[in-house]
């Protein structure tokens, strides 16, 4: 019996209260709500709130630019001469096929050794303005390391502005399901490396193996999407495996290519490929994932979450490298 089972069993006899027990708390809540109702006139329309949120997001975007000016570690990608022309009218399937054809021809970089680390510098998309105020750049720039065999991770703990940050290394046991639904970079690589060529074969393989995530969606397409999504964020990807994933993704419904390059949090202009999330709000707001794709390498360089077309979160990968020890940046 492992230690988590012991913890789970402690006081497991606790029972849920009956409705009578909960009634007083519900009354306190509804009283507070009615008081809020009386102030409702002050709220104005909800649209006003949304406008405020958008304004906040814009303000943060400006902050990001200022904070990163001159120090962005990522390379700058200059927009092509007519950057938008070839995206207009392009379907998700066409884009993904183009991407698959391009990446599958690329030679694979060396597979990391078990004791090597994958360094990733992520930039937060739409970070919380309050956190940015306190932490400064640390709220936006998120360097991290994971050992290829999943036996440890390292991060720089964010500290308030002006203080010196420190590398913190944590031992992990990511392989063989040691950490629940998480996987080591090596395990993800192995799944990708085993993918067959061709969309249908890839989907069949993923469904049979159910290798990565239990399909949470209610439909086959949603389960497939979940599985593919996890693999698309693998740390090290063999070219052919990525091409197979792209082709499998191309068969799923709902993908839309944004008809112009978008600017990511690392300051690059990138292709955005959006998929609606299930659970679109009935109030009309829609939620979507956006995959950010480098227009030259056609590799995924970030993900964003959108509500009603507005970016509310996500990360752009500003740098990634295989290094020999945690803390090294390639």
């Amino acid at each position: 019996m492992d230690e988590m089972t012991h913890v789970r069993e402690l006081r497991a006899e606790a029972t849920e209260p009956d409705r009578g027990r909960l009634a007083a708390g519900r009354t306190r809540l509804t009283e507070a709500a009615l008081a809020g109702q009386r102030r409702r006139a002050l709220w104005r329309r909800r649209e006003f709130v949304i406008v405020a949120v958008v304004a906040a997001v814009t303000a943060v975007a400006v902050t990001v630019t200022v904070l990163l000016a001159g120090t962005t570690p990522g390379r700058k990608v200059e927009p092509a001469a007519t950057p938008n022309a070839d995206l207009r009218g392009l379907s998700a399937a066409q884009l993904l096929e183009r991407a698959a054809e391009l990446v599958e021809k690329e030679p694979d970089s060396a597979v990391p050794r078990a004791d090597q680390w994958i360094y990733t510098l992520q930039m937060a998309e739409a970070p919380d303005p309050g956190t940015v105020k306190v932490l400064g750049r640390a709220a936006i720039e998120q360097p991290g390391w994971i050992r290829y065999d999943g036996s440890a991770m390292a991060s720089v703990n964010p500290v308030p502005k002006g203080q010196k940050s420190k590398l913190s290394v944590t031992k992990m046991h990511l392989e063989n399901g040691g950490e629940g639904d998480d996987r080591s970079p090596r395990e993800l690589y192995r799944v990708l490396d085993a993918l067959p060529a061709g969309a249908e074969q890839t989907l069949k393989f993923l469904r049979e193996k159910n290798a990565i995530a239990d399909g949470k969606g209610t439909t086959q397409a949603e389960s497939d999407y979940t599985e593919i999504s996890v693999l698309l964020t693998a740390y090290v990807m063999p070219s052919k495996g990525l091409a197979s994933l792209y082709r499998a993704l191309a068969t799923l419904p709902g993908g839309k290519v944004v008809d112009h390059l978008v600017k990511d949090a690392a300051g690059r202009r990138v292709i955005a490929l959006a998929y609606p999330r299930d659970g679109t709000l009935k109030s009309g707001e829609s939620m979507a994932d956006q995959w950010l794709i480098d227009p030259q390498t056609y590799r995924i360089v970030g993900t964003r979450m959108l509500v009603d077309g507005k970016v509310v979160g996500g990360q752009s990968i500003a740098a990634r490298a295989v290094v020999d020890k945690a803390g090294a940046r390639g």
Partner: protein
Amino acid sequence: MSGPPSAAARGGDDAEVVARSLEEPELFALLYDRYAADIHRYAARRLGDGAADDVTADTFLAAFRIRSRYDLSRANARPWLYGIAGNLIGKQRRTEVRALKALARTGRDPVAASWGDSWVEDTDSRIAAQGPLAGALAALSAGDRNVLLLVAWADLTYQEVAEALGIPVGTVRSRLNRARRKVRTALGADPAFVNDAAEVA
């Protein structure tokens, strides 16, 4: 995705309930109906029966007051509510630790005893395992204990704990691993793992 099947019929997913409650505050009570029992049980498990009523009510009042800051991209409000409850419970750290230490020393659990009829005294063998475990839980930092119990008792995923507490997933992982390591050490398992701990520290 989760929540009762009738949820959609009764007002939409949690994010939508929160959004609509900005204009129609009384709708927020739907979230109470969905999750108050869960939160109450969690609070009763950590602090005892007496504190659970107040922690539950205060959790939802606090959530209601800050609902305009709710991240509407999160369809399920359960992690958010557990995060608030965890912070409220954390304010009673000494109460919680005192009960755990009592369990560790005497084998009697004041928290379980507070539940009254629903609780049946444990057998001796169970108590033998509970003592060191309770001692280890008592010795954890409040933050590490919060993460561990959100995973073990509230069944939140790492991502949900990160959302609940507003911390990066990497921090969740490191806190959880530190907590698990200490618990494992206290339970006297796997000496190799203890060596790992020494290296990292």
